């Protein structure tokens, strides 16, 4: 008697038939189980005793369903060709843990397959089938819904985005009064610049660095006030409708602004989805050129529009290739060319370019906190690779990779930091123009940094610093006090809550692993308490698994998230951004 099948399982099987095309069927039938893919996969290399991580094994899980329902061999002789159907919702959950939890879709197995089997393509297809029936990790659901409804992956509201850009403009104009800052919604600009929401939410420095480069080059550029997200979670989740919808919003915005070119900030999956996949998903003819900001920056240097001094970046640096940039878009030489123009000491890592290993956080994997432990185990391959370079800085051209690398560097206690090309180019900029001083004739020495120039920029703010490491509390408190803030200190979760209730601070920095109540508990209690819910919170942590607060949330996400170790400039920049946004909302 035929086994009963759940409603969802039936839909997945029916939809599989509609997803089959020559590329996918070719990959599904071509595998000869030669094993070449096995050594190519970082999951296998980090888990040598576990065959369930082998790409061919994972592919067979999807292949068996195809064979059972769409290949004559499996329909007639299922036992002979290992054809197997899906029956229950538990079968779907099991498939979910494979296609989301055991593969980052990095495509390293694909380029090492002599038969041309593209596991990443049909793994993505399988993800899409599961998403269509609501079977997905919670983090994937959160991010997808944000992008569907708010228009960007991190749920950044329009007012917060615009306020941040305006605030960054004010910051720039304090240093350079005649700086155009960040032009918003300028019609007819030569360059429309699109970014990753991570930049506006947690890394605004990359936006101001890019703005400095555009302005120094004399570029006629702009950023859209809406539909600005160049990332596309459809690439990760397999949801082609989301992919098409998101890409189309950005393309239409460029046309609406009469922009001549779309420049995409450094992000592997953003570049691939916007530049390469988006037009197909959206079924949309794109009438303007699109390029990575890496290319834009190289051209500025080559054309003499900006001058750079590589002696400003002296540390030993290595370069990590984003999987989407390198393996899917061929962007391998340009980042190296740019890096060599702006740094003195570049050390290649091995293997590199299309053979480089995944950072393990790629494309959206960071959003799935339930898989963080196994992700970090698989990251050992990357950690060993980084360590072997002897570099103190790893440069990458991708925001997801920044987070993925930062997590594994902390987990494996490597003495390295991560940065992007835009930061290095901005740091190496040679600015000939004299710094203009304010009209009040206040003399500001040229060498003074913005942080020092505004020594009392936090005057009047009360900030609660909560962390169980006394040295860290002292460091952060000193930095904030030096800038005028009044500081309250807490060394465990209970004390943090008690002081938050008593003192009603203007902002709270929060560590996660503290005695008593953990930072997560403290955060959720704060957010659920009417009187405390509006206190802006900046998470300062060295625990990567706590990104769940950003991606996997039941409450309003934190206003800031900064990885330890933290430098003085980063503390001030993030704290000021959060306070400025809160002030603009009247909180």
């Amino acid at each position: 008697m035929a086994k009963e099948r759940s409603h969802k399982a039936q839909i997945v099987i029916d939809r599989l038939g509609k997803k089959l095309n020559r590329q996918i069927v070719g990959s599904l039938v071509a595998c000869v189980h030669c094993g070449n893919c096995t050594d190519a996969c970082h999951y296998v290399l980090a888990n040598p005793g576990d065959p369930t991580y082998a790409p061919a094994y994972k592919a067979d899980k999807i292949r068996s369903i195809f064979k059972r329902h769409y290949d004559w061999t499996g329909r007639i002789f299922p036992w002979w060709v290992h054809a197997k159907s899906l029956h229950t919702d538990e079968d779907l959950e099991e498939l979910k843990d494979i296609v989301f939890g055991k593969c980052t879709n990095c495509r390293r197995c694909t380029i090492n397959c002599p038969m041309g089997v593209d596991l990443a393509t049909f793994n993505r297809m399988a993800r899409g089938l599961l998403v269509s029936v609501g079977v997905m990790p919670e983090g994937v659901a959160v991010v997808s819904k944000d992008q569907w409804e708010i228009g960007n992956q991190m749920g950044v509201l329009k007012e917060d985005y615009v306020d941040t850009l305006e605030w960054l403009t004010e910051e720039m104009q304090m240093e350079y009064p005649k700086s155009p800052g960040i032009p918003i919604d300028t019609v007819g600009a030569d360059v429309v610049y699109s970014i990753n929401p991570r930049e506006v939410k947690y890394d605004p420095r990359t936006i101001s660095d890019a703005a400095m480069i555009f302005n120094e080059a004399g570029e006629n550029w702009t950023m859209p006030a809406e539909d600005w997200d160049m990332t596309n979670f459809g690439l990760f989740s397999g949801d082609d409708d989301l992919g098409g919808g998101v890409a189309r919003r950005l393309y239409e915005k460029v046309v609406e602004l009469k922009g001549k070119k779309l420049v995409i900030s450094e992000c592997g999956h953003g570049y691939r989805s916007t530049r390469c996949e988006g037009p197909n998903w959206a079924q949309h003819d794109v009438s303007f050129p699109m390029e990575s900001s890496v290319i834009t920056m190289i051209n500025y240097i080559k054309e003499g529009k900006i001058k750079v001094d590589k002696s400003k970046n002296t540390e030993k640096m290595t370069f990590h290739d984003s999987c989407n940039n390198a393996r899917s878009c061929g962007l391998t030489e340009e980042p190296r060319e740019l890096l060599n123009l702006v740094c003195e000491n570049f050390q290649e890592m091995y293997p590199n370019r299309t053979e480089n290993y995944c950072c393990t956080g790629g494309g959206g994997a960071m959003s799935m906190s339930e898989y963080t432990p196994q992700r970090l185990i698989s990251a050992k391959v990357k950690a060993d690779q980084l360590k072997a370079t002897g570099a103190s800085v790893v440069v990458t051209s991708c925001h997801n990779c920044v987070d993925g690398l930062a997590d594994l560097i902390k987990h494996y206690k490597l003495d390295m930091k991560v940065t992007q090309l835009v930061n290095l180019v901005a740091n190496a900029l040679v600015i000939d123009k004299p710094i203009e001083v304010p009209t009040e004739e206040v003399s500001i020495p040229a060498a003074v940094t913005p942080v020092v120039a505004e020594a009392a920029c936090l005057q009047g703010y009360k900030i609660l610093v909560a962390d169980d490491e006394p040295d860290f509390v002292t460091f952060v408190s000193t930095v904030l006090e030096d800038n005028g803030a009044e500081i309250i200190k807490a060394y465990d979760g209970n004390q943090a809550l008690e002081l938050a209730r008593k003192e009603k601070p203007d902002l709270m920095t929060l560590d996660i692993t503290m005695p008593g109540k953990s930072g997560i508990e403290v955060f959720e209690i704060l957010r659920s308490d009417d009187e405390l819910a509006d206190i802006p919170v900046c998470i300062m942590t060295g625990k990567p698994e706590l990104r769940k607060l950003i991606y996997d949330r039941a409450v309003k996400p934190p206003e800031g998230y900064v990885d330890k170790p933290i430098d003085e400039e980063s503390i001030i920049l993030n704290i000021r951004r959060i306070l400025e946004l809160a002030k603009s909302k009247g909180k």
Partner: protein
Amino acid sequence: MAASVKVKNCNLRLQKGDITDLDIEAFVYYAREDLALGSGFGTAIAVRGGPTIQKELNEFGIIKMTEAVVSAAGEMKAKYIIHANGPKFQEEDLPEKLKQTILNSLAKAEEKGIKAIAFPPMGAGFYGVPLDQSAEITLNTIKEYLSGETNLDDVVVCLNDNREYILFDKKFSSLK
């Protein structure tokens, strides 16, 4: 020009924009059964409206499929939010459930004395109801309802982008 049609004494119209930022008396949020606001428009409601909304929702507990409840909208431009638990991800009897969810939302609005209400493209987007199916059911159900006795005088279907707007507009034209 935005599409608009008069159904008896009520305006039914399409608008492009962010439903959670609309200057209207009430809007419908496509909710989960546990009424947790979650992400997407839920984030916008939590951030713009403040924590009192989720607190009010927690009092309701779990609601059944197709049911709707009304909460205040905190500090948002709207006064009320109608949280409607509609069908999700291709579940069984989707068209009938979707229609009933819309009717229950309208009934809740009437019960509260609301005159102006905005709907999103019900179930489309993240929850996977195909856009043309959502347009068909959302527009037809609202029009059918407005053809009867009602105190509503303004019903808006608020679409996020051109992709949604163009398709809804096409269906809307056939309503006239």
